[in-house]
């Protein structure tokens, strides 16, 4: 099988290229690894000099992330023995756990808004992409360009009137408002990516189904949708990641009920300044799902990034 070609790189070239890329990859991972490590440090270890690579792991950061605590007098602490392992950890600082922090709630908001907007953008995007791919639509190219150009607007520029509009409609700081907003931002990408995927499905399949007596709707969801499933899935992941990571709209339009995790994590404050282990713990919990997704679904994702870009 290994016939000689002039274009195949020699083994020495491969070795050199491999080494360089691996070095870059390892360097680029340092900040991410550091986030994960810091989450298991005690606050004192986190800010020690020189930075500690070897340390005694503790769950303090995670406990601080999920709870609110108050400082108590010695008598109180002696009278009330620690209730569980988490309580025991905070006793070191003469504190007791008094309740849950808002992190769980914010994280759930991210989940609800992320999945809600992804579902909606995929639902609407698939329909629109199918129509653009299969039907003659007047001014189709202009409409497609219009859909794409909405992504060029700086979020802050649109945020002013959306802020006013949401205030009038009672949509500010609601899940529905954020879902609609993220759907509107995502849908342009969704339509473009999905149109590419649907264009690849031969028309003959549907035509055969139509002749067999299917209606357009039936042909769409019984023939086209299963064929486009992979494309839909990878587009969905892009939408989900965008909604998950979005910050500008979230910080401007939400403050309490619908606030997502990205504006919340930087505001985690400990005793005497930023509680870096807790921030790192929050960041780890927030970033890890995306990293796992990326590694598991790398094939579809990588194709999606370039596919979308190259098409446009």
């Amino acid at each position, binding site marked *: 099988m290994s016939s000689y*070609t002039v*274009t195949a*790189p020699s083994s020495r*070239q*491969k070795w050199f*290229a491999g080494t360089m*890329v691996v070095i*870059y*990859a390892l360097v*680029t*991972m340092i*900040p*991410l690894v*550091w986030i994960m490590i810091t989450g298991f440090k005690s606050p004192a270890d986190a*800010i*020690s*000099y020189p930075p500690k690579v070897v340390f005694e792991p503790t769950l303090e950061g995670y406990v601080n992330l999920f709870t609110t605590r108050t400082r108590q007098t010695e008598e109180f602490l002696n009278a009330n023995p620690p209730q569980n392992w988490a309580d025991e950890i905070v006793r070191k600082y003469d504190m007791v756990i008094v309740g849950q922090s808002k992190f769980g709630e914010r994280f759930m908001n991210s989940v609800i808004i992320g999945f809600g907007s992804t579902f909606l953008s995929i639902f*609407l995007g698939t329909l*629109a992409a*199918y*129509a653009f791919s299969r*039907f003659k*639509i007047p001014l189709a190219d202009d*409409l497609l360009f219009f*859909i794409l150009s*909405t*992504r*060029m*607007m*700086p*979020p*802050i*520029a*649109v*945020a*002013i*009137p*959306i802020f006013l509009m949401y205030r009038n409609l009672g949509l500010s700081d609601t899940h529905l408002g954020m879902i609609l907003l993220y759907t*509107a931002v995502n849908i342009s990408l969704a*339509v473009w990516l999905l149109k590419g995927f649907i264009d690849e499905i031969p028309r003959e399949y549907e035509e055969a189904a139509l002749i067999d*007596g299917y*209606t357009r*709707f039936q042909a769409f969801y019984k023939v086209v949708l299963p064929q486009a499933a992979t494309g839909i899935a990878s587009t969905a992941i892009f939408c989900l*990641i965008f909604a*998950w*990571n979005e910050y*500008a709209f979230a*910080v401007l339009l939400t403050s309490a009920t619908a606030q997502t*995790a*990205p504006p919340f*994590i*930087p505001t985690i404050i400990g005793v005497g300044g930023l509680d870096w282990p807790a*921030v*790192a713990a929050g960041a780890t919990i*927030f970033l890890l799902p995306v990293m796992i997704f990326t590694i598991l679904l790398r094939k579809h*994702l*990588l194709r999606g*990034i370039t596919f979308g*870009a*190259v098409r446009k």
Partner: protein
Amino acid sequence: MSDRTIDRVAAATPAPVARKIKGLSDRAIAWIFVGPTIFLLLAVNIFPLIWTIRLSFTNFRANRINRETEWIGLRNYERILTDLDIWLNMQATAHFLIWTIVLQVLIGFTLAYLINKNFRGSPFWTTVIVLPMMLSPAVVGNFWKFLYQPQIGLFNYIVSFFTGKDPSSFEMLGQVNLAPWSIVIVDTWMWTPFVMLICLAGLRSIPDYIYEAAEIDRASKLRQFFTITIPMVLPFLMLAVLFRGIENFKMFDLVVQLTGGGPGSTTELTSINLKREAFEKWRTGYASAYAIILFVTVFGLASIYVKALNKVKER
């Protein structure tokens, strides 16, 4: 199947006609399918844009609804374009834009070139390299603030390890001369993979036979690189630059978390400045005019650029 006339007629009807009788026409379906998307974009993108244009001619303040709003014509635009501070923000944005693009193109292309050698394990390492760009810029930017801490930060420690400088002698985020570079470094770390992936797609689109032909013509490797590889990848590279350019012109989350625009206003990119005007000073009308100016700038630059891109593609 029964043998009634009506069934026989139905069976004999040509498919397109039958479809029309049974369900909606294709035209109607097309509008039902496209309609919601267009409606949503009109409601959440175009309507706000028109509203912004309207507001930009007034002195409206969103925190004082009861105050009477005056129509002040082009005064907002006049004030912005003659404001020296805004030109400083534009300069900060330009510095950020130019250096991130230069670095990302150089590193991204080199990486793509190396990965295209298809060494063992290259798909795995590609995925590892791509990880940073998938993550939330706000959360990651916030953590980089920790890495940049003068005494305790890992970044300063590594720099001092290699250069011998005292790790508390420089403050990446606090010094006027270093802060603009601190944001360039993080953005490059985060978005080089994007440029790399697009370059990789470009490199993989070059068919082998072109190199084979060049080899037969005894063109040197260096010559092949400059006359085949570079021109063939150029359209892809330019596309990557377009996307990064638009994205970084809008840059907000990463930088606002890292420096918040400081020290002073050395890293106050236009988006951060705009947010300050609109949501801290509540000069809504003024900020709207500012937003329109930014939007027109991006749109204008992008259209000129796309024209150039199309010319390169035609070649």
